């Protein structure tokens, strides 16, 4: 008797959990869906009461209007180049430094590591003005390398890599490689790199999306529409006098879809490496 009561109570609890999570998932996904609805509807759909919630058939037309406003494909390509280079450089710098902090003994190690973490509290805006003049003096204003260089600094990456390497690479393995006469860099290349690959998926997605979505620095450095990254280009869409919501959402939609596809493709790797990476 008592047992049955308990299971019924539990299943109501379980049902509530599902209802709550489904609601959260719905709210999470709705803006994406609605972005699609607007991207396929005429601008007038936006004025209708009640609001349109069914997709229209202007997917192509709206996108053509975007192409009239901004150089969409060039901007996407620029963003892609910036993010790819930044991600590769950060993965390299972080894994190398993470390896050193995890496995080597050298004087000042802990202070230097704490110093790296401390740089996280410096607001990026504090350096903004001198960085702007520095980039302009180096002739990198309004260029993609000028955009990239700021993102090469990633203290979080070093932190994550140090944690990962010190947990997943046994000291004995390194000792054995050394006895075999491996140089330290050789150990990094053929021993550490393959082991940290799963962590690269996590850090890679974090770095890629962060630099993809960054706005302030790109907005400050880039002037010529030809050099715009997609974020700067998108921000221009709403600056026109007659705001065309179908057009704006179409731009946002096509700029978001590739990123979502990449994420959905890698998500198993990504979420499991975050949640399984920690010690159990």
């Amino acid at each position, binding site marked *: 008797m008592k047992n049955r009561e308990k299971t019924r109570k539990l299943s109501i609890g379980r049902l509530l*959990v599902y209802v709550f*999570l489904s609601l*959260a*998932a719905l709210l*999470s*996904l709705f*803006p*994406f869906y*609605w*972005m699609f609805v607007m991207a396929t509807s005429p601008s007038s759909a*936006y*004025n209708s*009461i009640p*609001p349109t919630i069914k997709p229209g058939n202007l997917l192509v037309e709206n996108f053509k209007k975007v192409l009239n406003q901004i150089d969409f494909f060039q901007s996407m390509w620029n963003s892609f180049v910036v993010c790819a280079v930044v991600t590769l450089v950060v993965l390299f*710098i972080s894994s*190398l430094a993470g390896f*050193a*902090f995890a496995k*080597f*003994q*050298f*004087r000042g190690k802990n202070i*230097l590591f704490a110093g*790296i973490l401390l740089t*996280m*509290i*410096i*607001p990026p*805006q*504090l*350096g*903004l*003005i001198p*960085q702007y*003049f520095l980039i302009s003096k180096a002739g990198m204003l309004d260029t993609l390398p000028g955009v990239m*260089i700021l993102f090469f*600094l990633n203290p979080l990456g*070093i932190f994550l890599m140090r944690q990962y390497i010190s947990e997943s690479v046994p*000291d004995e393995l390194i000792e054995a490689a050394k006895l075999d006469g491996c140089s*330290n860099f050789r150990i990094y290349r053929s021993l550490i790199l393959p082991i940290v690959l799963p962590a690269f998926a996590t850090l890679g997605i974090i770095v890629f999306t962060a630099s*993809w*979505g960054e*706005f*302030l620095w790109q907005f*400050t450095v880039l002037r010529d529409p030809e050099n715009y990254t997609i974020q700067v280009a*998108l*921000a221009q*869409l*709403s*600056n026109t006098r007659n705001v065309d919501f179908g057009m704006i*959402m179409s731009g*946002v939609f096509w*700029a978001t879809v590739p*990123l*979502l596809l990449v994420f959905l493709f890698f998500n198993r790797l990504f*979420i499991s490496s*975050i*949640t*399984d990476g920690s010690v*159990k």
Partner: protein
Amino acid sequence: MDPVKVNPVHNGVKVRKKRYRTEAKKDMISGYLYIAPFFIIFAVIGLYPVLFSIYLGFQKWNGLSPMTFVGLDNFKLVLTDPLFWKSVYNTIVMGIMGTAPQLVFGIIFAYLLNLAFLKFKNFFRVTIFMPYITSMVAVALIFSVLFSDHESSLANYVLSLAGLDPVHWGSSEWGTKIAISIMVFWRWVGYNTIIYLAGIQSIPNDLYEAATIDGANKFQQLLHITMPMLKPFIVLTVFTSTVGALQLFSEPTVFLGTSAFTRDEAMTIVMYLYRDAFKLQSFGTASATAIILLVLISAFAAINVFLTSGIGRKRRKGQ
């Protein structure tokens, strides 16, 4: 340092001692070499600009003519500007409204997403995390349509269903703040959830087993095991959220579009700084604002971390 201590595996193997001494030296050089790239780049584009900014905070400069030393004048100008204080107020209000609920919901989501009986785990995890993948500019544009002033905007339509009057989301004091806070919440809650999820999964299972044997119910387990063990993760997220919240820029700038820098309902500290530097060419006061921002961030981060690291301590004492 004695290398034998570092590698306990080889404790007592005397034969290799000499070899180790040169090994240790090699490791030391490698160590410095491998961390050098970060520090070199940091020196050029991190440290130097920050120091220069601090120097600039005491100069009057429009970017072209020579600088003139003005002492604390820039700070005086900024600190007596009502618009600056308005931007501080806006930043703090939107920071609290946008991030505090995130941390609470993040823990709830993480707890639920880790329940053993839950099916479609991965689906829920991915959907809740997905908003983080979109860029802030995209989010701001989507929400500027969802929350537009127009009576027919979806947000106002929902309000009208509840019998409420439409809100001027883009032009009223609270409308703007609420819309921006919801935007921040929507984009970041999944990110914090994933961090808490990682934290929850790092808690050893035997703790729960022992508690179950001792007769603790699920809620007691949540309160006395999950929460205290999550503490480092809570401290981390509170720290990063505080720092992030005080740097709010993209959302209001894109949400308000062309009028972003001329109106004050959603002017944040960084927008104030940006406006001084790149709209008014007043680089001295902008740098002073940046220094004040650094002080504010350090102070808030320290207070918040202090408060959150108290969570577990009190409980332990009470037990």
